[in-house]
């Protein structure tokens, strides 16, 4: 029985990691700029499509007809040669194999650019407007981004293969000294979880241990005073928006082998990650992370057949159910500060 529970716990981790990363970015945006960003799921999606585009670039190939080689039917063969392999040889093959993690190199600058452009181009006009209008304009933006992706990449999902070395399963049970082969866990999910932990740790360290992070935290607590001290807090908040976009984008890149991205991906994750933010408490970074993992794991437990036998359909609604209960009994969420958005 312990094995079953432990396995479900592990199964919830990868989804939980994705929720935590998106919710973290959402909370950064809300905590710094006070904006409710319905387009944050779209940023996750743009990240995922960075991986698609990167792989597409790597696998461009030349096609020429070779008259000396004949197929069994006597036709000349088409010879396809990937450009990367032509240029770099075996190293090129490794590049293609590791395209997903390498896409991070593309995703980071792209996401920074997208994030800053979004904040400077649209969202900064909405600081003083009511939350309802912020929701509306970012919702419209999310539609636009989704449709642009659809126009560029087509409506079908694009499966991304994971690197061959990271396929297969890790025998976590054996590592922990239990019987071998009982608790196995797909290697890539483990990678995703560790990656998420690293990113979350980096964001917290950045906020906690750098001067920039200190100023940002001060600005989150009292924007006006920090501004009066002669610090250009707006620019730092813009950069934080870019960082939030990078976090969402990197989460999207690494998630592509688990779920082939399509243009609806952003909307699918957005709803859930908002629920995650609310459960964790608006504006609380640790709350967002904790709630992300918590809800991912709860969802995993709810999809156990034993649980579904007692409560049919619970796996479909558990996240929303938890959100409703939390919102009604503890309005500021699990770890929200008293008085922040408690109305």
């Amino acid at each position: 029985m312990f094995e079953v529970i432990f396995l479900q716990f592990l199964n919830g981790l990868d989804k939980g990691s994705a929720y935590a990363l998106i919710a973290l970015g959402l909370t950064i945006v809300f905590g710094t700029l006070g904006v409710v960003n319905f387009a944050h799921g779209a940023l996750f999606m743009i990240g995922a499509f960075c991986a698609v585009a990167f792989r597409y670039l790597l696998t461009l190939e030349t096609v020429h007809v070779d008259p000396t080689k004949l197929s069994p039917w006597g036709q000349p063969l088409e010879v396809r040669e990937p450009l990367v392999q032509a240029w770099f040889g075996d190293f090129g093959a490794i590049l293609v194999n590791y395209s997903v993690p390498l896409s991070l190199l593309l995703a980071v600058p792209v996401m920074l650019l997208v994030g800053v452009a979004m904040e400077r181009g649209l969202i900064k006009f909405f600081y003083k407007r009511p939350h309802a209008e912020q929701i509306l304009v970012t919702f419209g933006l999310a539609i636009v981004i989704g449709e642009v992706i659809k126009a560029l990449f087509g409506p079908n999902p694009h499966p991304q293969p994971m690197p061959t070395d990271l396929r297969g399963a890790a025998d976590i049970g054996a590592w922990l000294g239990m019987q071998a082969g009982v608790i196995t866990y797909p290697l890539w999910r483990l990678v995703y979880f560790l990656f998420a932990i690293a990113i979350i740790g980096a964001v917290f360290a950045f906020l906690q241990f750098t001067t920039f992070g200190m100023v940002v935290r001060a600005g989150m607590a009292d924007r006006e005073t920090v501004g009066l001290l002669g610090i250009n807090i707006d620019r730092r908040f813009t950069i934080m928006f870019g960082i939030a976009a990078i976090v969402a984008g990197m989460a999207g890149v690494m998630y592509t082998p688990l779920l082939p991205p399509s243009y609806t991906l952003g909307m699918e994750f957005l709803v859930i990650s908002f629920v995650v933010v609310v459960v964790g408490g608006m504006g609380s970074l640790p709350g967002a992370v904790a709630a992300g993992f918590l809800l991912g794991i709860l969802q995993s437990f709810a999809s156990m057949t034993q649980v579904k036998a007692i409560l049919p359909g619970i796996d479909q609604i558990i996240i929303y159910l938890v959100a409703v209960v939390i919102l009604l009994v503890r309005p500021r969420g699990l770890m929200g500060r008293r008085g922040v958005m408690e109305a």
Partner: protein
Amino acid sequence: MTSFMSRRDLFLFAGFTGVVLLLPILAAPFGAAYPDLLQRFMIFGIFATGFNILFGLTGYLSFGHAAFFGIGSYAAMWSFKLLSLNAVPALLFALIVSGVFALAIGYVSLRRSGIYFSILTLAFAQMCYNLAYSVLTPITNGETGLRMALDDPRYLDRLFAEPAAGMPVPSLFGMSLGGWNGFYFSAFFLIASFLLAMRIFNSPFGLALKGIKSNQTRMNYTGFNTRPYTLTAFVISGMLAGLAGALLVVTDPLAGAERMRWTASGEVVLMTILGGVGTLVGPVIGAWIIKYFENIFSSFNANVLNNFYSFLPDGVREVAVTISSKFVGEGWHLSLGLVFVLIVVFLPGGLMEGFRRIAAWLGRMGNGSKRASQVGVQPAE
């Protein structure tokens, strides 16, 4: 009659009724004068009017109204299947069921306001949607969607007559509801909903709702218990959404879960904002425009575009066609999203505010030195 509504409202109501009833003629120059599309105009007009009673008056932004729309559809379909092919019991049943759901969901969601209210309604709508897709398949028929069958029981009908041969179609006391009959049937309900909205806007109840929108705390301090007011508005708007859903089943006898998706909820928000939130006719206009362009734009393809740009030289035309084809046909949501963003940024009051500004501007142009406020044409509100 004057005691029932003011002279201005009477004009507005008469004008609205006239436009709706003459729509088959008025829409002809736009190529929209066929019953199926016009019926959608009516149905989504009702949906947006109902949504506006909640969002426009109280400022509570619900992101889950499609749930009531879908529930209305399912309820009407079950009435067709179990009771009778007559549309009247179906609509009544849909009103009751969606009203009960709205009461329950509203009672819980309205305990919070602002963004939390939006998230709560969204969560409830997603629960309805997910359940309709999975566990409730015996009731909703899951992904396939619920439709009528020859061997449905239809107890009320069978009491009076043997079922006719052929596929069952909804009717009104034996009168077919296909084609223009269906349009006028829906038009009747749109006009009725409009009248209801107008009465609410001008009633003390409506004024209390507007007070809640501008400052709920102050309303509480003046001794108003605001909860029953918002809940009533929520239930009314949920019931109108259910009514619209039921009418859609009358036109197109298939009830599917995708009508409850949160993107569908987003659509009614778009309609209301586009037309003008908080105005009477705005949401209806928004609904018509979105449904019209959805219909027109979706039918555009490369050929149509080539004809449209036929005056351009070849190279330029190809570029123009390639670019515009991303905005029409399959990609028409892109145009919708862009227009929506522009509206929220520049015209938060929607098209009605645009009309008002143009009217005020014309007034200033016409009257030279006179102050605009004196002559500013009062918009239809």
